[in-house]
């Protein structure tokens, strides 16, 4: 390394840390991050003898939340759902299920067994998403741990060690060692003393050493943390060779790898036993009779006294009138549906972009990863398929479903391909990690969210600059959040500053419900 971290840079780092703390507080104040310790409890006014009709557009998680809650308080709800199924982006694919991708319809041929499913949309519930978890509890949805980080899974990059797949633990142990050595060596104790007391400086240095498993001399010489090259139980363990820092730096893998288990995807993550759509079933157990399937909304008109919605079902256009309307149809689809929304609403709807996430999965004829000491978790690849997920459930059973690709950032690469080309691409990419991959996998499915019927995107993308939300963007968001005429509410994770999470969909619904409740209380007072 030619340049050591200067003290000034180090102090900048400290300043940045102070900034984060401030941002966290500000975030909580804005309602971006969970501030309180408990899930929201909605205490809506029970309508009693009065009557209120509600039309809910789309049976996404937010729409179902509204139907379920309002049902408790005496509202008369109808859900219009364009698709043949409920749940939108909460989509668990099992034997016989239709994947309604436009131009690439597929039927899933997985074996018909409870553990043989694939969560094509939402798959993970962070333990801090307490509103979703509260509904899981209330609705009797059984949960189990979802394994995101697995140190025995692989890292594969053609630029790294000639493309040989290495274990996550080899990569991270060595990377941490070198990073710690760099930090420890770049600061003399006097320099550290400047911003800190002697004790603090010693504590810090101690942590840096422990972080990287450094020797007394602050040098990294490899670590048993990466496991043993041989022995270790009945004989002395033999330490694995170090991977040279220069070699590690030939790969960008660390950028993703070092942050893959932070933030929302930090431990502990949970999943619904048997598939994420058990949450949807939990809701439909209560409000399923309120859903009209294959009922595609064709127009929405907000009037002074209510909301008129036209929808097509069985080749006939129907009209339904209600006092209030909650709408989780993606904004980019809503722009193609007739409506009389105000100008600021429309500007905001047109501003939001749609994401292109893409997932693919195979049935594995045997759980080959378990023979490689892998139980759950993610292999990271520097190729377009990007990730391999090993199921957290069904351990030691005969077969399992593996995720063969997940591109959250830009799935358009695979989206543009034919089904055949997609499958071949994933087999070729995965072979670099598991040499016999091609022969061990069968019954592929792929899901390009950009092309999924009635969805045409994976989630709302509000921000366009790296700097995050601009003032204008925030304003547009607030316009779209506030109801039209007090009667039409947009809901869904699209009406949040944290899209692509179920928690946001639920919280958007709760926000709208609380808002409606204030109005209804005033009306009935």
């Amino acid at each position, binding site marked *: 390394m030619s340049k050591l971290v200067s003290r000034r840079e180090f102090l900048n780092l400290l300043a940045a840390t102070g900034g984060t703390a401030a941002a966290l507080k500000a975030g909580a104040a804005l309602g971006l991050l969970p501030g309180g310790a408990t899930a929201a409890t909605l205490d809506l006014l029970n309508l009693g003898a009065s009557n209120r009709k509600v039309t809910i557009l789309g049976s996404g998680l937010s729409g179902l939340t509204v139907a379920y809650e309002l049902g408790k308080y005496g509202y008369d709800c109808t859900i219009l759902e364009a698709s*043949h*199924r409920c749940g939108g982006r909460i989509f668990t694919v099992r034997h*016989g299920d*239709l994947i*309604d991708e*436009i*131009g*690439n*319809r597929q*039927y899933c041929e997985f074996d018909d067994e409870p553990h043989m499913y694939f969560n094509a949309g939402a798959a993970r519930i962070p333990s801090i998403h307490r509103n979703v978890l509260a509904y899981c509890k209330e609705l009797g949805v059984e949960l189990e741990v979802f394994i995101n980080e697995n140190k025995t899974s692989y890292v594969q990059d053609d630029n790294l060690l000639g493309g040989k797949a290495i274990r996550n633990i080899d990569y991270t142990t060595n990377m941490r060692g070198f990073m710690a050595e760099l930090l420890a060596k770049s600061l003399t104790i006097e320099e550290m003393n400047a911003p800190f007391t002697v004790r603090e400086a010693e504590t810090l240095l101690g942590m840096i050493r422990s972080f990287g498993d450094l020797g007394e001399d602050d040098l990294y010489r490899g670590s048993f943390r990466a496991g043993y090259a041989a022995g270790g139980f009945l004989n002395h363990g033999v330490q694995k060779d170090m991977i040279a820092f220069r070699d590690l730096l030939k790969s960008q893998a660390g950028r993703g790898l070092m942050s893959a288990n932070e933030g929302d995807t930090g431990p502990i993550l949970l999943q619904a036993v048997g598939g994420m759509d058990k949450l949807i079933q939990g809701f439909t157990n209560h409000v399923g009779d309120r859903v*009209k*399937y*294959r*009922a*595609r909304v*064709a*127009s929405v008109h907000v009037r002074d006294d209510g909301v008129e919605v036209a929808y*097509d*079902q*069985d*080749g*006939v*256009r129907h009209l339904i009138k209600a006092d209030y309307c909650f709408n989780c149809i993606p*904004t*980019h*689809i809503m*722009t*193609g*549906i*007739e409506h009389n929304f105000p*100008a600021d609403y*429309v*500007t905001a*709807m*047109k501003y*939001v972009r*749609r994401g292109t996430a893409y997932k693919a999965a195979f049935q594995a004829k045997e759980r080959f990863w378990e023979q490689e000491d892998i139980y759950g978790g993610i292999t990271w690849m520097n190729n377009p398929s990007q990730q391999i997920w090993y199921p957290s459930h069904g351990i030691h059973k005969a077969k399992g479903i593996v995720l063969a690709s997940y591109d959250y950032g830009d799935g*358009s690469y695979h989206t*543009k391909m034919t089904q055949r080309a997609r499958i071949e691409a994933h087999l070729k990419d995965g072979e670099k990690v598991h040499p016999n991959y091609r022969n061990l996998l069968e019954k592929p499915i792929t899901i390009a969210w*950009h*092309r999924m*019927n*009635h969805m*045409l995107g994976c989630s709302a993308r509000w921000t366009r600059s790296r700097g995050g939300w601009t003032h204008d963007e925030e304003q547009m968001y607030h316009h779209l959040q506030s109801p039209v005429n007090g009667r039409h509410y947009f809901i869904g994770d699209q009406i949040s500053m944290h899209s692509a999470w179920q928690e946001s969909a639920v919280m958007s619904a709760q926000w709208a419900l609380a808002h409606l409740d204030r109005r209804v209380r005033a009306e009935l007072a």
Partner: protein
Amino acid sequence: MTRKTWFSLCLFFLLNGMSSFAAENEREPYDDRYCTSCHGTDGRGNEAVQAPRLAGMEPWYLQRQLENFRAGIRGAHPRDIEGIAMRAMAVKLSNRSIADIIEWVGSWETGPAEITIVGDASVGEILYGTCAACHGSNAEGNEAIAAPALAGQNDWYLITQLRNFMAGYRGTHPQDRYGAQMRTMVNGLGDVTGIIDVVSYINTLSGNQGSSRLIQN
């Protein structure tokens, strides 16, 4: 929706045995009527998905475009992102399906499109002089020359197409006879400003409606 649509839709669903009451686990019957998912209610066009207006489109032009997409004459250029999306749909269409869809599209009614661009329509009028020979002085189209109507189409879509012709995303396939013809015409527009001006003029022919929702380009 007109009575004719109701009838044709009902007939279609009857023939296909599709019903909203189909049991959950029964296989969904296949049909190709995905168009409105992208092209909006009654094919009115959806800017957010970049899918243009289909309502009011001439059947001969609609048919040719569907066939061109299907054959890869259109929508196959790697940078033609929107064309590629449309092509994924078109490759699934049989001749029978295309005939069915043309009839379906023919049943849609639609009003004027929303104006979303601002350009100099008076400059556009002059530029449009050359276009009129083929597309007609009211941009009403001319089947004999195989040039479609431009009036009534979404302005943002006309812009994408003129850009696509200019960039060679459209009209460069060796079998794209009509596209090639059109491609030679875009050079006269100069650049994007010319494109916006001429489309602003076409807006005046369309009876397209201005709105407070104007987005400056």
